[in-house]
């Protein structure tokens, strides 16, 4: 078999929501080139699946017969009276089957169909080794099943499996780490030491601990205000949703003191409406100039909007479409007028009110309304009318280019594809609920899982190191502030403080007084079999404690700049504690920043980076010497169960 080259390697990383894939390794590793939604649609024939939603619609010969021409992917148009047309709808997700739930494959035919779809759309040559990232929750039996599928279906010459937690550790270049992978509906916590994952006590697929749980919590909090689940999902993804560290107070109305005189003047608005709007514009994270700020405030005074967010989709479907559209048009005209009127004043007023999101009581985000679009499509509008309706409903499209340049908060969006053409955007305003996504106990659950996982590592001496290299990845953890909040939760619940009882025997505070010539203050080295259960204490027992204190005090001030803010004593040592208990310090691991593209993208998908590193090592450098992958002839000899000898 000829050796594999960089450009031949295929990587696939299935996830509950998104499956990442990439053919070929670039010179400098980049985030996954291809992102597939992990879902398929049942085809007409039972047991078969289509990658996109196929909509069947009947077209009446009267009227809008040719309208569908603008829809992409329109395939067939039958002939005769009852013309049946099928169209592929790349956006709609109605009726989709998601074969992976909580990391676990729940629908194998669909899962295999998904993999096949991915493979076919990449269409690699036959001489393509495949590395598949596995979810920790997959069982050995399932690994065999997948191996069998790949070899029999694609005739792949070489195939390897790699645990995604392990891949994350590779990406970080750490041989010992605790990987917290927060996915859509679950979190996996894996303790890895010396590149070996501890199976015992590994918390796989802790339920209700994923991004979905955050959305759910937002929905619980906001559904009384009329927000739908989809809105909450987008709110979660928007930069205004943050997780504050436990104990941090929520911004109240008194903090958000800025009042928009311009909007008040222009509209005579009362109450909080204009006030809130100020913040949105001033923050600049809603991609609009400060001008429209006031206009929206004005809109809020419309009677229909008083009850909060309207379900436009229901209006559309209920047939009051034209009235509604007309009204929207009117509003837009008014708004433009108002903009001319109050634009400058508003801009001036908004500027001093620029506060960070975390200190505002209310803020807005832009909502892309797919449901509405679906509803429109289902009404069989023709292209022209559709475009009109869209333009009327879309608030986002009318935006002025952001003049503030204050787009820092937009960076979480950077990695994502721009919204497809034709989406309908609306602005939605929310209050302090946006800070409470993680208030449903999710931080505590994950923290408990981390504690449990590390505590069940048999070698007690390794636990300190595991606590010191915590890796939080997974797109569920993307919400701003989540990682810090998790770290703070771990600190406040599990961190062992230096005991005051032994402080003079084993741990010297950094402000220790200078030894006198009489020897009065010279600390005595410890005597006796102190420690013993872990190597850590023993290593310290023969060292002059003064020296020890000096070095640790030095470290403490440099390594834990954040720790003093968290209310712990500044002399918290990790290695020199007399505690047999862990953790005496908890730290997030740092990722080496070799890859600029990854740096911009964020390291939530670090497992994929690790897979790239591993693929390079296994397929190109190592060429199978280390049994990193299974070749086709290995498979022919050993069958699917042989994969256990090869997987990473």
């Amino acid at each position, binding site marked *: 078999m000829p050796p594999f080259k960089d450009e031949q390697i295929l990587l696939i990383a299935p996830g509950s929501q998104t499956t990442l894939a990439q053919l070929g390794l670039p010179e400098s590793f980049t985030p996954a080139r291809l992102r597939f939604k992990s879902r398929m649609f049942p085809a007409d024939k039972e047991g078969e699946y289509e990658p996109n939603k196929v909509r069947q619609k009947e077209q009446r010969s009267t009227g809008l017969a040719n309208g569908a021409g603008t829809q992409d992917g329109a395939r067939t148009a039958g002939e005769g009276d009852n013309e049946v047309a099928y169209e592929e709808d790349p956006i709609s997700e109605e009726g989709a089957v998601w074969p992976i739930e909580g990391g676990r494959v729940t629908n194998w035919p669909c899962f295999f169909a998904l993999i096949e779809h991915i493979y076919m759309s990449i269409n690699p040559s036959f001489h393509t080794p495949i590395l598949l990232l596995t979810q920790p929750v997959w*069982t*050995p039996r399932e690994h065999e099943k997948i191996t069998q599928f790949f070899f*029999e279906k694609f005739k792949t010459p070489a195939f390897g499996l790699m645990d995604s937690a392990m891949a994350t550790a590779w990406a970080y270049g750490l041989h010992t780490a605790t990987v917290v992978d927060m996915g859509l509906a679950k979190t996996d916590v894996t303790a890895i030491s010396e590149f070996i994952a501890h199976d015992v006590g590994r918390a796989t697929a802790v339920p209700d601990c994923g991004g979905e749980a955050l959305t759910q919590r937002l929905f619980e909090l906001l559904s009384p205000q009329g927000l739908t689940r989809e809105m909450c999902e987008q709110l979660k993804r928007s930069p205004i949703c943050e997780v504050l560290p436990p104990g941090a107070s929520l911004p109240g109305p008194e903090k958000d003191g800025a009042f928009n005189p311009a909007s008040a003047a222009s509209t005579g608005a009362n109450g909080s409406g204009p006030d809130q709007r100020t913040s949105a514009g001033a923050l600049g994270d809603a991609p609009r100039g400060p001008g429209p700020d006031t206009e929206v405030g004005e809109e809020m005074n419309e009677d229909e909007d008083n009850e909060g967010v309207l379900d436009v989709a229901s209006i559309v479907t209920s047939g009051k479409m034209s009235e509604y559209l007309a009204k929207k048009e009117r509003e837009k005209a008014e708004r433009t007028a108002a903009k001319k009127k109050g634009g400058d004043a508003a801009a001036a007023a908004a500027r001093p009110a620029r506060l960070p999101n975390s200190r505002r009581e209310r803020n807005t985000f832009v909502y892309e309304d797919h449901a509405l679009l679906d509803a429109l499509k289902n009404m069989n509008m023709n292209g022209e009318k559709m475009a009109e309706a869209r333009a009327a409903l879309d608030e986002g499209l009318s935006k002025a280019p952001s003049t503030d340049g204050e787009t820092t908060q937009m960076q979480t969006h950077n990695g994502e594809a721009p919204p497809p053409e034709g989406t309908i955007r609306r602005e939605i305003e929310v209050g302090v609920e946006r800070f409470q996504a993680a208030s449903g106990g999710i931080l505590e659950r994950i923290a408990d899982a981390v504690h449990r996982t590390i505590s069940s590592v048999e070698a007690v001496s390794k636990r300190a190191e595991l606590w010191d290299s915590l890796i939080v990845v997974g797109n569920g953890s993307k919400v701003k502030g989540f990682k810090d909040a998790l770290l703070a939760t771990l600190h406040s619940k*599990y961190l062992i403080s230096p005991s005051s009882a032994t402080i003079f025997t084993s741990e010297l505070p950094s402000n220790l007084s200078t030894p006198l010539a009489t020897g009065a203050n010279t600390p005595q080295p410890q005597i006796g*079999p102190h420690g013993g259960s872990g190597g850590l204490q023993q290593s310290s027992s023969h060292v002059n404690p003064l020296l020890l204190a000096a070095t640790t005090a030095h470290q403490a001030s440099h390594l834990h700049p954040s720790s003093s803010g968290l209310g712990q*004593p500044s002399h918290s040592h990790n290695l020199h504690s007399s*505690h047999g208990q862990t953790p005496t310090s908890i730290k997030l691991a740092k990722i080496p920043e070799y890859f600029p593209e990854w740096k911009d993208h964020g390291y939530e998908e670090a497992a994929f980076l690790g897979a790239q590193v591993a693929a390079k090592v296994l397929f190109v450098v190592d060429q199978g010497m280390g049994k990193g992958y299974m070749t086709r002839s290995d498979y022919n000899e050993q069958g699917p169960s042989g994969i256990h000898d090869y997987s990473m």
Partner: protein
Amino acid sequence: MNNSTAPQADYAGDEISALVLDPGYSTTRAGFAGEDVPKSVVPSYYGALDSSDHHLFGENAIHNPLPGLEIRNPMSSEGLVEDWEVVPKLWEYAITSRLTSTAPTHPSKNGLNNPAEGDQDTEMESLDDAEKPMSQNPLLMTEPGWNTTKSREKAVEIAMEDWGCPAFYVGKSGVLAAFAAGKATALVVDVGASTMSVTPVTDGLVLKKGIQKSPFAGNFISSQIRLIFAQSTPPVPLVPHYMVKSKAPVDAGAPSQATFVKFDKPPAASFRRLEEERVLTEFKESIVRIWPGPGKFAQNEEAARAAPGQPFEMPDGWNNVFGAERYKAAEGLFDHKAALVDADNPAPKAEQTISAMINASLASVDVELRPHLLANIVVTGGSSLIYGFNDRLHRELEHMFPNPRIRVTAPSSSADRKFGAWIGGSVLGSLGTFQQMWISKKEYDEHGPNIVEKRFSSDSNSDSEADADAQASAPAAASSSAEPVSVADGEVRAVEVAGEEEAPVAKKAKKSSKISNAQHRTADAQEQPESPADSATPAPARSSNQLEPDAEEAFQQFYLRQVTAEFAEDLDKIRAAGDFSDRALPVLVGALRQGTACFSAEERRRVGRAAVTAAAVERGP
């Protein structure tokens, strides 16, 4: 060997991996045979909610402070199954959640049988042909030495009928723990969560009359710690993690200043107890130690006080230094008078200390066997990991038995100690030679659950001896080859060869404990040429008991010498293999030794006698 079992080619170790299930009071261990640690270790505790009949299994579920959550344990305090309603579900969870699959799909829909484009050979045999969860895996289960017939039968019934296992085997946990330590003759001291037991094992067979057990083990230490906390002034607060929202550092001994979580409806007391147990486990790991000796702690309390204490911090931030107290928690295991007592915690009796139990166990076995057992004491079980346990045990035994050589073997890795019986099962289940030992589904269908009684009960002697033959011939052979038996000149050299053969293997550093299938294949292949008619001639094996023991012994010696000389090169190769560990040694020797089965009783006697005579002649002048 059991001639009732036809060797079943289907279950050759490298073809289908057997599942090994080792249920215990605290955790249930499951994994594939041939691996070095169980992949699936789930708590035996499970959660029950009033609102539903659905039970909650696994770490993820039972540590969630749900309102009204009750924690129960289906095992009895003796480590036997008590609740047969729940246990199968728990076991099934342990196996399916991490090993096999929870949701098998129908083969027609598994995506592999799609009509392929073109004429590719994508059609395969169905991957999951069953609604039954374990229809592909033989199941090897462990049981404590004192397991009841009824519960053994129940287990085979579940495996065969509910799970559809193709084959079943049950091994005594004492024997398996000895195997894991590479021994077939051993005195196994197993300190678990609910039970401490002493099991004499000889040639892979439990001597049932020598089994001693007491309820003073890990849970006992926990309750001792609770007593220490309660009896100290002021009492030490034991607040589990889930009740604490955040803690603040406080001075040693000062009351906690943590903020607590408020529950509308708190979980049941049993949940709190389980969570407290986690804190106590941490306490045991980091604080508790056993007075290393010499002598009892009671006589040395002053010395202990001089040693520096170690601080412990509770989940609510309370912390203090534990000095001499930390020796008290486990002292009751060795010194019944030292145990802390209150109304709910009666003191152990004098005969329930470890040394007394070992003594009683030894007293009930043959006198000749005792030195062998004392030289092979195997310590296993998670609670034996308490710091200083082995030193103290060794000292106590030396004190009690001044003369014979005492050797306490305990794996240094804590995983090996925690999962001793499971690892033994894993080794056994992956042996090529073991594969004919299974009870097959067919046999079960013929005989009913009663079959386990016939095959595995250590009361019925003949059958179990046959078991012992097959299971653990190995170390017997190893030890015999170490004894220098001088015969004729040529043969002396052969003995040396054999001796060299075995000794370095035994010493060989443990590189990887994973036993590769490839190696078994070699071991099997080794056996094949020697015993081409193995399966066809079960008779000689059966009649082995009738031979004169001398002649039989001599024949074995002779045979092994010949084989080792003959296959010296191959053996070298096997030994040099990277994954050859000391655990694999018994496998290899056992495989070699089984080659004797292909000679008829008559042949063996003749050769054996000749060897004995030759030896006598040699010694004569």
